[in-house]
């Protein structure tokens, strides 16, 4: 048209781009084209606007930026002809998305086109609106779309219906406007309109309960009739797919019936017959038929119970599951997962087949099957199922091992019937796929091992054997190193043999060898190496004969570039060399780790926690109370996300031995009160665990006499001058003995005081349960009148749980001549993070007059 235009045709540009041999060439061609298009845009070239936009769309598809063409779409849409509008709308849908501001500018053009006399232009506008409309546009244009639902041409009605879906998804408030016009669409004969109408109806029911109620009442029977006519319709070539008339309509009708039948017995009842007919009569040799059956099964599962139908549905799934087509098996697994809530027994029957699917060559099917197996596990079948899965772990491919390991570990933790089984299975998993085992899983394993005192020997020997054959699995190495450090003596002495075990002969130097190899392994990371150093330190005391050799190994890391290793090496070397007298006390076996605390900590982060066996409430011989167990868990917890160092005396020694890479533990509270600091240290150094040990008296002294701020300075100096620390220890050595505290004592507080009444709280904690505080409250009457009908009430925020025991009485003698006591039990789910807080109300009568006192307690000790 314009003889002076220099632009190439669309076809030529595509050819030129396809002829490019390299990416650079392609970029050059595109750059040239883009420059020409920009020039044309600047000149406001009319004739080639649509061609330029088409080129831009192609360039856009190749992934180049094309934002400069957005306004061209708008211009094309605003021009009068159909061809320009058609390409303009296409560009709009392709180059823009609903979040772009430019879109607002087009609203007016779209509105005009929705009212256009040419129905094809109306169709273009509806299509574009349906694909990219934003919430604002939806609000502005909803009335037009609503009107078009009654347009004379069915092709416009169906487009309007889909456009309405988009509108009500963007603005659910508009749903009610569409209810009436849609009811009319459901009576249509035209399949396109019917399909889109049914779909719109389904979406309306999702966003609006009123719509659901309305359609359930008015349309259920009609829809059932439509479906019946469709199922029984004679061959219709226009809609036929594999011998079935319009499977798309089938499926949409079934979907809507599901929505209507769910939770409504009457509606469900009225669709039973037709569902049975679909389930039995549909041919299942082609994909279309299976798609319908699949939808039908889901509908049967979702609507109100009808035993016969459900049997039918489960049978269909069973048939699907044994199908050779992978697609069908995939959807069967998928649906069985939903069926498990309906009829677990029926699904269990297919367990063997499902287990086979876990080993399928198809990753999608494996993943589905694994999820399903996970749901199928219960106490009775856990052993065989776990065996199958663990065996499969050996041969499964690498991509799948991560998922599989996580699930297996979770199953083992959740359903393990006994500890020995748990430990056995975990060892197998660690051996096969230790690199995929998450940190919290092996932490949990260590806690369980520590609690199973009769299995210590067995476990450490099994780990030793495993480590001899495979040293490639990081977490296996860690657990083994930890256990050898703790229970090395049992390894050598073969103590606590179980019947099932083969005896092995391990010398002391073998044990040291294997830890040494862990430290020397190149693949070992910092955590493993640090743990191995600690294990060596512990072994140096357990095996005095190897002490010299261990010292040599430790010294090798004196010059390590990693600060953590260097520091440990220096410190441990000093302990081995200069402090024989306290070494054995320092490296005592860890006290039993508290399962409840650990379980509680995990519960917040993980859905499946370690099974906490209730029988193993920990009791330490010398009465170190249990709140200090939490830092022990931290000691194992090698995570790097530890909060800022708290400035109490405990940290310094924790650094000394702690595995925590950043130098502080999660202060679970204990080390904030001055006295509790001692307990942390006691536990850390494992001193408390053996009763009547002479030399352990010296260490508590160091701690209790060391002022809180001193050790911190010392710890800063540690690296520069390691001997500094030793001096500190030395100097404090011979202080007078002091009996170990009986649990962390908390000061009593005056919780509430008014002119006439005082309430004091005494605190205590149960061993092994740091979250729970026992409070004993005692009320004293400060006035000179007798209080009667005395009632105390308390309230706590949500993160706390409060249990009030009955009070000792309800009358309080005057002038402090007696007290009422009442016990409270508070469980703090945010223990260590949030302090206790309580609001209280006290009501009583003085001379027959009601008195009400209220108050809030904010002065609880911080670490309850």
């Amino acid at each position, binding site marked *: 048209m314009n003889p002076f235009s220099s632009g190439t045709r669309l076809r030529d540009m595509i050819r030129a781009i396809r002829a490019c041999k390299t990416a650079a060439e392609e970029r050059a061609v595109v750059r040239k084209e883009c420059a020409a298009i920009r020039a044309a845009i600047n000149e406001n070239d009319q004739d080639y606007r649509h061609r330029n936009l088409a080129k831009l769309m192609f360039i856009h598809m190749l992934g180049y930026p094309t934002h400069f063409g957005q306004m061209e779409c708008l211009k094309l849409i605003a021009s009068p002809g159909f*061809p320009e509008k058609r390409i303009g709308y296409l560009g709009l849908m392709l180059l823009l*998305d609903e979040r772009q501001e430019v879109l607002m500018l087009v609203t007016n053009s779209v509105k005009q086109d929705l009212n256009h006399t040419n129905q094809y232009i109306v169709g273009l506008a509806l299509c574009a609106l349906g694909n990219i409309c934003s919430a604002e546009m939806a609000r502005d244009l909803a009335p037009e779309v609503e009107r078009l639902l009654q347009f004379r041409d069915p092709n416009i009605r169906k*487009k309007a219906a889909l456009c309405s*879906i988009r509108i009500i998804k963007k603005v659910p408030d508009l749903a009610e406007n569409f209810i009436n016009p849609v009811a009319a669409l459901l009576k249509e004969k035209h399949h396109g309109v019917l399909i889109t109408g049914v779909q719109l109806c389904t979406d309306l029911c999702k966003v609006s309960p009123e719509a659901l109620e309305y359609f359930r009442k008015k349309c259920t029977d009609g829809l059932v009739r439509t479906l019946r006519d469709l199922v029984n319709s004679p061959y219709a070539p226009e809609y036929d797919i594999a011998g079935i008339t319009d499977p798309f309509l089938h499926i949409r009708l079934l979907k809507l019936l599901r929505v209507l039948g769910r939770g409504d017995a009457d509606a469900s009842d009225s669709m039973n017959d037709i569902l049975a007919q679909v389930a039995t009569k549909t041919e299942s040799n082609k994909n279309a038929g299976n798609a319908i059956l699949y939808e039908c099964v889901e509908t049967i599962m979702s609507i109100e119970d009808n035993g016969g139908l459900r049997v039918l549905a489960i049978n269909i799934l069973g048939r699907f599951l044994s199908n050779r087509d992978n697609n069908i098996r995939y959807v069967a697994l998928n649906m069985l997962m939903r069926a498990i809530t309906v009829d677990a027994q029926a699904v269990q029957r297919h367990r063997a087949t499902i287990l086979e699917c876990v080993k399928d060559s198809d990753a999608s099917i494996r993943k589905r099957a694994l999820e399903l197996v996970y749901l199928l596990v219960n106490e009775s079948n856990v052993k065989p199922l776990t065996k199958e899965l663990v065996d499969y772990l050996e041969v499964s491919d690498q991509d799948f091992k991560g998922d599989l390991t996580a699930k297996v570990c979770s199953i083992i933790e959740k359903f393990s019937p006994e500890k020995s089984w748990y430990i056995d299975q975990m060892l197998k998993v660690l051996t096969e796929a230790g690199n995929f085992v998450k940190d919290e899983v092996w932490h949990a394993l260590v806690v369980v091992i520590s609690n199973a005192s009769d299995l210590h020997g067995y476990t450490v020997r099994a780990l030793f054997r495993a480590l001899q054959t495979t040293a490639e699995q990081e977490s296996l190495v860690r657990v083994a190193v930890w256990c050898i450090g703790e229970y090395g003596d049992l390894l050598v002495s073969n103590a606590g043999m179980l019947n099932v075990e083969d005896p092995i002969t391990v010398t002391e130097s073998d044990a040291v060898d294997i830890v040494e190899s862990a430290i020397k392994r190149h693949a070992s990371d910092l955590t493993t190496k640090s743990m191995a150093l600690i294990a060596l330190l512990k072994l140096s005391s357990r095996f005095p004969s190897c002490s010299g050799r261990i010292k040599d190994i430790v010294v090798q890391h004196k010059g390590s570039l990693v600060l953590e290793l260097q520091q440990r090496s220096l410190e441990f070397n000093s302990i081995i060399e200069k402090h024989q007298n306290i070494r054995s006390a320092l490296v005592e076996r860890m006290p039993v780790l508290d399962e409840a605390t650990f379980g509680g900590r995990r519960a917040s982060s993980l859905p499946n926690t370690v099974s906490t066996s209730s029988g193993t409430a920990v009791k330490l011989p010398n009465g170190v109370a249990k709140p200090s167990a939490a830092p022990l868990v931290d000691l194992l917890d090698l995570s790097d996300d530890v909060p800022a160092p708290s400035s109490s005396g405990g940290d310094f020694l924790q650094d000394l031995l702690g595995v925590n890479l950043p130098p502080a533990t999660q202060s679970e509270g204990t080390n904030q009160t001055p006295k509790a600091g001692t307990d942390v240290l006691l536990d850390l150094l494992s001193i408390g665990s053996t009763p009547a040990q002479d030399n352990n008296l010296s260490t508590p002294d160091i701690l209790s006499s060391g002022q809180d701020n001193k050790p911190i300075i010392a710890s800063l100096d540690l690296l520069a001058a390691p001997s500094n620390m030793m001096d500190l220890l030395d100097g404090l050595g011979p202080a007078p003995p002091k009996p170990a505290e009986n649990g962390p004592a908390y000061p009593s507080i005056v919780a509430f005081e008014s002119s006439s009444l005082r309430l004091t709280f005494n605190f205590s904690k149960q061993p092994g349960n740091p979250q729970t505080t026992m409070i004993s409250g005692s009320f004293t009457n400060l006035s000179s009148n007798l209080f009667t009908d005395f009632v105390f009430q308390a309230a706590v925020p949500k993160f706390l749980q409060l249990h009030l025991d009955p009070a000792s009485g309800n009358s309080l003698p005057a002038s402090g001549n007696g007290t009422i006591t009442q016990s409270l039990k508070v469980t703090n789910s945010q223990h260590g993070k949030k302090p206790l807080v309580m609001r209280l109300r006290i009501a009583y009568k003085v001379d027959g007059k009601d008195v009400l006192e209220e108050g809030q307690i904010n002065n609880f000790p911080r670490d309850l």
Partner: protein
Amino acid sequence: MIHFVLLISRQGKVRLTKWYSPYSQKERSKVIRELSGIVLNRGPKLCNFVEWRGHRVVYRRYAGLYFCMCIDEADNELEVLDIIHHFVEILDRYFGSVCELDLIFNFHKAYYILDEVLIAGEFQESSKRTIIRLLSTHDSMVEMAKEEATSIGNMIAQVTK
């Protein structure tokens, strides 16, 4: 609903993309990269579904072209396979035994066809005949407009000669 439709060639070239859910330009290219990596590498005998970021991608291969549609977890995967086939059959009828080159040089036509099959990520029309009829009406309207423009151009040319 269908969140997006992708046509990827065996070499990983994108032949058509249609987004029914909002994805930014960056996300779009990331999605394409990720999915072509997953889909193109799957063996021939495996099932046609891939789980991906909490959605499911249903794909089907026709010669060197992979047709992918991303759907919600609760949608009917088997039906989506039929939707893909439905779309392909219409392409075939429209172009007359369609091949990849048709979709490259007439990519806009492929989009027009898709717009008659899906709107807002929902299925629109199960009759192939209806769709073909609509498309030919659209095409003839474009032809008419072109002829008109040419004849007007000729008239102007004659007048100004």
